[in-house]
């Protein structure tokens, strides 16, 4: 590019006119050549008048020459001035393009991490972006706990982020970062007194803090094996990126807390019914396990499992609404009591309907006592009209009820229970669900013996 600057300048009409006018003003002919000696302007036959040759330079490189008489210096000076201005203009342009690049990157990044709710994913995106913007051998995010101890190191290429820390052992420098919580460039690690580690793996590094509400939760570190002179603008960029990361991390953190709270609440709800009817000890947990194993056997999509898990955990929540003398009765129920008991799936719906996030879970709770032949309750739905979640829970629930001790009878053996499932497959139970439950794969997963497997073609 540099070589062509003079040619490009002379291609501009206004420049050409100016040069022409100046040349006419001097007494002897002038010619302008590029660095290869090709004439770009002037009289090719003016050789005899050329007593002087003045080179036009750019950063110590000769990019062209002006030839002419003694007073051709004025042409050379003017041209040199224009070349300098052109180079400055180009340099400014490059600087601007670099900023354009950064703006585009930051815009894209904002969109990408804005919708990201996973801590690791956020870090992966950010380190990937840093990789494209800065020169580094390792890019790692160090996360700390409340006592400023490093709890996690995530590096961008999956390589051992510990290397960075090992290099800084005993970590005085990193500790210092955490205390000052200020971005910093250390271009010569070996010369830094805080860096007492033996022998240095990295030569240069930059660090920028991740701050969430004034608290430093970690650092973004960039390290170079060879010695580099990271300029201040690189640190500025790193700081901007780490600020964005912190915001995204905070969001991911809050989201995860919300999720945890939500699941804790669901567990609490499930626990209340367990405590109310302790005889069923761990019934809920086993129904969850059986249900998930069945869903796996049915090869249901992954995103479905959470819904099933919640529904299975909460399937009997409606029993909270059943009177103690019915729920805890030690003996067979009267007709009136049975009517009471049969209301629990509907009570379940009434309890859960206030939680918007459990909307998809309700069918599994409300219909887990429906039967494929339509003789179930509360609505008497048939076959596929019954939500698949409810059909799965029905099998898991009945199986566990049969195989555990009840106030009015002892547990049935696994063999008998399997045979009951087979016997009522297609009438009470969904045959595909029963088949999945009895499959070798599911049985193995649940650690049950191979009872009744010869009869599984129900």
């Amino acid at each position, binding site marked *: *590019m540099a070589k062509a600057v003079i040619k490009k300048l002379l291609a501009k009409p206004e420049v050409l006119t100016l040069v022409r006018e100046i040349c006419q003003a001097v007494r002897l002919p002038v010619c302008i050549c590029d660095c290869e000696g090709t004439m770009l302007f002037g009289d090719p036959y003016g050789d005899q008048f050329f007593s002087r040759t003045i080179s036009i330079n750019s950063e110590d490189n000769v990019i062209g020459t002006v030839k002419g008489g003694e007073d051709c210096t004025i042409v050379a000076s003017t041209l040199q001035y224009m070349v300098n201005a052109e180079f400055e*203009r180009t340099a400014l*342009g490059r600087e*601007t*393009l670099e900023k*354009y*690049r950064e703006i*585009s990157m930051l*815009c894209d990044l904002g969109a990408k991490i804005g919708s990201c709710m996973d801590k690791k994913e956020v870090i992966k995106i950010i380190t990937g972006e840093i990789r494209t913007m800065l020169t580094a051998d390792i890019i790692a995010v160090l996360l700390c706990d409340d006592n400023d101890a490093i709890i996690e190191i995530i590096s961008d290429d999956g390589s051992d982020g510990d290397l960075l820390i090992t290099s800084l052992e005993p970590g005085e420098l990193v500790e210092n970062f955490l205390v000052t919580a200020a971005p910093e460039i250390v271009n010569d690690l070996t010369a830094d007194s805080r860096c007492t580690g033996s022998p240095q793996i990295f030569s240069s590094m930059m660090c920028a803090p991740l701050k969430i509400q004034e608290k430093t939760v970690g650092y973004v570190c960039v390290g170079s094996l060879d010695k580099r002179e990271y300029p201040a603008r690189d640190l500025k960029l790193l700081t901007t990126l780490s600020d964005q990361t912190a915001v995204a991390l905070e969001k991911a953190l809050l989201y995860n807390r919300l999720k945890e709270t939500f699941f804790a609440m669901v567990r609490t709800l499930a626990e209340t019914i367990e405590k109310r009817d302790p005889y069923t000890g761990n019934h809920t947990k086993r129904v969850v396990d059986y249900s998930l194993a069945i869903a796996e056997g049915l090869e249901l999509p992954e995103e479905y499992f959470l819904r099933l898990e919640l529904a299975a955990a909460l399937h009997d929540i409606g029993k909270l609404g059943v009177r103690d003398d019915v729920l805890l009765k030690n003996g067979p129920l009267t007709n009136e009591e049975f009517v009471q008991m049969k209301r629990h799936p509907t009570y379940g719906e009434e309890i859960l309907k206030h939680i918007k996030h459990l909307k998809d879970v309700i069918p599994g709770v409300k219909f887990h006592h429906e039967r494929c032949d339509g003789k179930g309750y509360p609505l008497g739905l048939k076959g596929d009209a019954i939500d698949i979640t409810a059909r799965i829970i029905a099998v898991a629930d009945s199986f566990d009820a049969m195989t555990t001790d009840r106030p009015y009878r002892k547990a049935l053996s696994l063999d008998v229970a399997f045979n009951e499932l087979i016997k009522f497959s297609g009438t009470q139970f969904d045959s595909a669900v029963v088949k999945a439950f009895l499959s070798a794969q599911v049985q193995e997963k649940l650690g049950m013996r191979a009872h009744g497997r010869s009869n599984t073609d129900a």
Partner: protein
Amino acid sequence: MTKILIVDDEPFIRQLLELTLEDLEDEGVELLTATNGEEALSLIKNERPCLVFLDVMMPKMNGFEVCNIVKNEIGMTDIYIVLLTAKGQEFDKEKGREVGSDQYMTKPFNPDEVLAKAREITVRQLHTTCKTPIL
């Protein structure tokens, strides 16, 4: 010769686009510039660039009008037109489709994206030119 036309009324945008594409100049691509819609149109007709980076907001004739004439009125549909629009300014995608533009980019443009697009189109141009029988 493969040509790319840059159209923008703001001189520094033209310069930045030229700077972005200067690597292609070394590969034998000629960069042309125009400062308004009318000038752009006459260059398109006479020089037949394979790719045009066309600013939307211009005095006299805006980018949409130029694009519409090129694509729909004089039928030079093989010219790839990238409309340039300011960030934050809502780009009328419907209008962009109507006038037959191939793509739009927002300013400040991403230099890497501009260069990649220019390479893609010039390579494609080279390819089709070679395939076309001489007689």
